């Protein structure tokens, strides 16, 4: 009799354990889904940040381009004189960035006019610097 009641207790306990394990399993699934969602969200935030960074650089490039154009226009306009104009207007301010600015001489005249459709003289042609990779 005592053995029977003990066995019944054990069966009951096993059922309880099974139920708890099932609950843990369901909770784990839910957590896994949650983690996946977080990962997806972080990845997409990452992508948004990187796209924004690219757009910012592109906008900055466009601004430099505009600065270069306005400097060229300034240089062109300087050549004109109106009657009664005392002196030449001051030279255009130096560009806030490198690159375009270094293509002008100290007098503000372009070193190389943007007329040729071919490669610029100071371009590094493809293959010219293959030796650069030696030792790396």
């Amino acid at each position, binding site marked *: 009799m005592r053995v029977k009641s003990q066995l019944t207790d054990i069966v009951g306990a096993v059922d309880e354990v099974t139920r708890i394990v099932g609950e843990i399993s369901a909770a784990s699934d839910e957590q896994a889904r949650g983690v996946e969602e977080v990962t997806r969200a972080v990845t997409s935030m990452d992508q948004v940040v990187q796209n924004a960074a690219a757009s910012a650089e592109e906008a900055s490039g466009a601004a430099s381009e505009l600065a270069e154009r306005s400097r060229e226009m300034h240089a062109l306009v300087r050549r004109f004189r109106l009657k009664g104009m005392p002196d030449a207007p001051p030279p255009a301010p130096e560009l806030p*960035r490198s690159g375009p600015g270094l293509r002008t001489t100290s007098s503000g005249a372009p070193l190389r006019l943007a007329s040729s459709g071919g490669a610029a003289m100071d371009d590094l042609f493809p293959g010219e610097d293959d030796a650069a990779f030696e030792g790396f």
Partner: protein
Amino acid sequence: MDAAAAAPALGPAPMPERVQRRLRELTYEHTGIVIGPDKETLLVARVQKRMRKLGLASYEAYIQHFDAHPDELQQFINVITTNTTAFWREADHFDLAREQLTAWAEDGQRRFRIWCAASSTGEEPWTIGLTLSPVADQHGLDLLVLATDIDTRVLGVAKRAVYTREAVRAVPPDVRARGFEPVPEGLRVVRAVRERVRFGQLNLTRPPFPMKGPLDLIFCRNVMIYLDRPTRQRLIAECVRLLRPGGLLILGHSESALGMTDRLEVVRPSVYRVPE
């Protein structure tokens, strides 16, 4: 060529969808750069730049010119790439590199190879050279920097190492004093630093690269922002191949290697290490 016949108009003509698609595909194929459909203005502005130089009045004429002249591809790449850069940009990376180099030198390492993957007009590789040269000189190191870009125009500018005083203003005064010499067009990086930097053209979307490695430091900053995920993943894998154990991969502040590889450990955001 139906050149220069274009009447002055208020702003560029809209680019036909077919031309847009072709140019996007060309850009992706040859540079890995993704130009989304939301970036028509960018595409138009940059292609117009080429058309102005060539005296072409229509997009169709440009496409014809492109197809007839194989060397136009490089010119197209040169205008389509974005070259934003500055001296001492995201400056903490250079402090980190100097500290790391000092530690390695004190451990007895003498040979160092550093790669600046997207060097643009040179501000970044020269910043690396100017920051690390004193450590290299002090410890008598064999230290060389390789600077690469896909754009041959910016490589030409970078190699000349001449910048306006305005651009050099971002350089700390003590470095400016020892690292630059006056030239008629502005300031030039001094020879001792110039001798440590090599320049070469490289397409980051086409691994394997010609370098053999092992490299100690790779600066691959603000270039993956233009690439799609598979291209980024290939690029990071190639960086991992080239780095020695313990070597560092330094990305731009807005970039991460998140979920791209399991072969790098995070040193801090945007800085990764190949485990020893």
